[in-house]
């Protein structure tokens, strides 16, 4: 079982509508991805919470259908005031 890039992107954007999502398929097997996700929802959250938001968005597929998703998350750079 594996997941397609567009499916991961759709799920993430459903939970984080403002998210910018860049996904790389690391192994070409639909099972090992790297995702860089930028969303305002991450602002002020520790990394663990940021990643948990993404895992929640994937609705329990993480660790099951999706074996490996290397995550890099951050809020958008705050505009210099």
């Amino acid at each position, binding site marked *: 079982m594996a997941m397609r890039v567009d499916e991961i992107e759709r799920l993430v954007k459903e939970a984080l509508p403002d998210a910018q999502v860049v996904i790389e398929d690391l192994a070409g097997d639909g099972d090992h991805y790297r995702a860089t996700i930028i969303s305002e929802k991450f602002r002020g959250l520790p990394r*663990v919470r940021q990643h*948990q938001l993404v895992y929640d968005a994937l609705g329990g597929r*993480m660790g099951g259908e999706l074996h490996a998703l290397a995550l890099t998350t951050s809020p958008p750079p705050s505009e210099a005031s």
Partner: protein
Amino acid sequence: MSDPVHERIKKQIEQDDVVLYMKGTPVFPQCGFSSGAVQVLSHLEVPFQSYNVLEDQDIREGVKTFSDWPTIPQLYVKGEFVGGFDIMREMFESGELQEMMRDKGLVEAKS
């Protein structure tokens, strides 16, 4: 009625300062991410207690609900969930992990 597996996990993470739930053992890691986690900790020269989740299905599933984190490895420092391999690597590369270990007195401050 509290979850008996969660109680076991709670005891394990309070028993040792640094605890790593992993697939395999530090000498024979069975997954790339678990192996990476071991290398990070070894590089920091911080002693840690590891638990092989492949030998204990209850713990393997229990740690996922215990910390609301779906994957293995999982690192705990002084009873607190730190993260999986991604977060360990990010914190290691930024120096945050070393700082955390020093702040908690788990490694001497390097001169």
